[in-house]
């Protein structure tokens, strides 16, 4: 079955967990024992309603403090497809977890409290969504029951949000506005009679209509080699295949290819998976390739079509979302992991720190702190084979690993 990945965003108490709980409940995805657990916990906390956040806040510390600290992954399905929701934290100090959740999602749901309207966290979350180029954004204006389901309030908030969209750098993003009450169930899985003035789709119908996979026609086939398969058994004595996952576009047997960094040319002789052979492989598949010629290829090398070479460079400019409490500073060295390829990187220059409230950029800032986003230039010890993030996200992003703590300290989007 097809899988659609969703991330939620919104400030604390905007009702993210309630919305997810409502989606689970209304699609009958909550089993009796889980529901009983929620009833039990809600009662013991003295609530007279079902606190669905107890279904998603899985850690003791989260339930004690009543906040979401880390991303929880929630699963549900309808008759047509499966859904994975990354329920991300609303607190500013956990913005990095929001970046994590949004990085693999096709859809982002941004919640807004109808009583509060567009606030700083809305700016921040939408900014991250346009930076990550999440294809679809559902702006769910929640708690409509508390503003008498007022069309005026909905329109005002939409107008404020439209002003943000006007400043977005990602024009291809599709943005949908829905007035909801997660608590009362308005416009979640069915259209509500409380909002007769609203003619659009409810949240679930929107989710059902969004394609799970949209490959840009511009993106090129990139095949980073994860490892070389050489069984060395009598049955497969001279067998040699290159295992990896294909990004960007499809490849066919007979395609003329170039191996990077050696720039050796060859032709695809075979595409195989678990003993079966194929003429063509689609984007997103983990398979193995065989080539006409015996070439020295190792992990981290990349196979591309000969007439579609990527950028090959030791200099790099990227937007970096910083995820570590230890700040990013000029001159600092990191392990840069681009797909499965690792090189060493030195921070050359912090060009600007971008204000996530769309108010512009801060120049001359000497470091990038936790949860900040900056344009940074790097020098690498070896070239990487990359595309711009907006052309091929899979080959246009990287992570920065701190050599001392081994922590994943930042994520980069190549410009």
């Amino acid at each position, binding site marked *: *079955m*097809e*899988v659609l990945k969703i991330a939620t965003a919104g400030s604390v108490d905007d009702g993210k967990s309630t919305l997810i709980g409502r989606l689970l409940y209304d699609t009958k995805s909550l*089993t*009796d*024992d*889980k529901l009983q657990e929620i009833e039990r*916990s809600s009662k013991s906390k003295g609530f007279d309603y079902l606190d669905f956040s107890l*279904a998603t*806040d*899985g*850690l003791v*510390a989260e*339930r004690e403090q009543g906040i979401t*600290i*880390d*991303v*929880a*992954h*929630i*699963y549900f*399905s309808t008759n047509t497809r*499966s859904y994975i929701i990354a329920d991300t934290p609303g607190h500013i100090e956990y913005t*990095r977890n929001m*970046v*994590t959740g949004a*990085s*693999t999602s096709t859809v982002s749901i941004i919640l807004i409290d109808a009583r509060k309207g567009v606030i700083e966290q809305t700016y921040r979350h939408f900014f991250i969504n346009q930076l990550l180029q999440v294809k679809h954004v559902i702006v769910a204006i929640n708690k409509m029951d508390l503003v008498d389901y007022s069309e005026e309030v909905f329109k005002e908030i939409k107008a404020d949000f439209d002003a943000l969209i006007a400043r977005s750098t990602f024009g291809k993003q599709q943005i949908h506005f829905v007035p909801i009450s997660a608590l009362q169930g308005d416009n979640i899985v069915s259209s509500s009679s409380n909002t007769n003035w609203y003619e659009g789709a409810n949240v679930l119908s929107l989710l059902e209509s969004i394609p799970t996979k949209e490959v840009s026609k511009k993106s090129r086939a990139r095949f980073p080699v*994860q*490892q070389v*398969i050489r*069984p060395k*058994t009598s049955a497969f004595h001279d067998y040699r295949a290159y*295992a990896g*996952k294909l990004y960007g576009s*499809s490849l066919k*047997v007979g395609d003329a290819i170039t191996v990077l960094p050696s720039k050796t040319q060859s032709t695809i002789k075979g595409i195989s*998976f*678990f*003993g*079966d*052979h194929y*003429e*063509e492989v*689609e984007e*997103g*598949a*983990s*398979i193995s390739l065989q080539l006409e010629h015996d070439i020295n290829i190792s992990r981290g090398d990349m196979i591309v079509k000969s007439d579609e070479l990527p950028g090959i460079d030791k200099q790099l400019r990227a937007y970096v979302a910083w*995820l570590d409490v230890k700040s990013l500073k000029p001159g600092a060295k990191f392990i840069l*992991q681009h797909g*499965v390829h690792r090189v060493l990187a030195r921070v050359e220059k912090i060009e600007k720190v971008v204000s996530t409230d769309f108010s512009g950029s801060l120049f001359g800032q000497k470091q990038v702190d936790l949860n900040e986003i900056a344009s940074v230039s790097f020098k690498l010890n070896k070239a990487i084979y990359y595309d711009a993030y907006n052309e091929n*996200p899979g080959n246009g*992003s990287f*992570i920065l*690993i701190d050599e001392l703590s*081994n*922590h*994943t300290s930042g*994520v980069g989007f190549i410009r």
Partner: protein
Amino acid sequence: MQNKVFKANQLESESVHIFREVVAQFERPVLLFSGGKDSITLVRLAQKAFFPAKIPFPLLHVDTGHNFPETIAFRDKLVEELGLELIVRNVQVAIDSGKVREEKGKYASRNSLQTVTLLDAIEEFKFDACIGGARRDEEKSRAKERIFSVRDDFGQWDEKNQRPELFDMLNGTIELGQNVRVFPISNWTELDVWHYIKQEELEIPSIYYSHRRNTFLRDGMIWPDSDFIVKDEIESVESRQVRFRTVGDMTCTAAVGSAADSIDEIIAEIKLSTISERGARIDDQRSEAAMEQRKQQGYF
């Protein structure tokens, strides 16, 4: 036959990618094998990831000594058929040496004692990556897990300070003494696993199918009768038509009344079920945070 377009099965491709990353990034990986459906699925995914080469790591079974005999027989058959290397470490050894104390009373189980034996085995073989079949949809603290989950040199999980995982880039860099738990089927649901077992025509232990078994009722659940469980006088053993939806050992796994004796019937039954899979796990019912506490100690 060379005529087809290979279309990615998103979940399978993701899992195969993870397996290949494990072997590339770690020196001594091991697959934690329980004989249950999730670890059987892992074995098939590992076969696919490295074919035609053999699975390049051993299987480790932490045997509580209270397993269903059907599971053990299945394990040995699978290992032999696929020519895999199997390491077995017994909880009994840790009990005999006084390292752990066996629980007493009618709810006694060796489930949480497995952690000590697992950590000992990790140290003995210097495993740096332990691949497990845990899924995020199973349980609320597992919903918070990373795919590469770093454990410190005491085997413990620091759930509040996990490494971010972006796109499908996995960071397995660790210090000596640390290890990583790897969960390749994190994003699969119970039904995804069953659909895959059907698609791949995988064999599974017979106890997943409907059979007659001596059972007794306790706390609203159907417990399998065995020598390892102390029963009250009022708990009377009866033969019932049951199957197991999840397979732990005989002291912590409850049965469900069922006539399902094919994969299709099992799938139909799960779709209609109003109880979650872990609802049949007695080990999870001990407290609201039972799983998180065990995970912090080094459980998988």
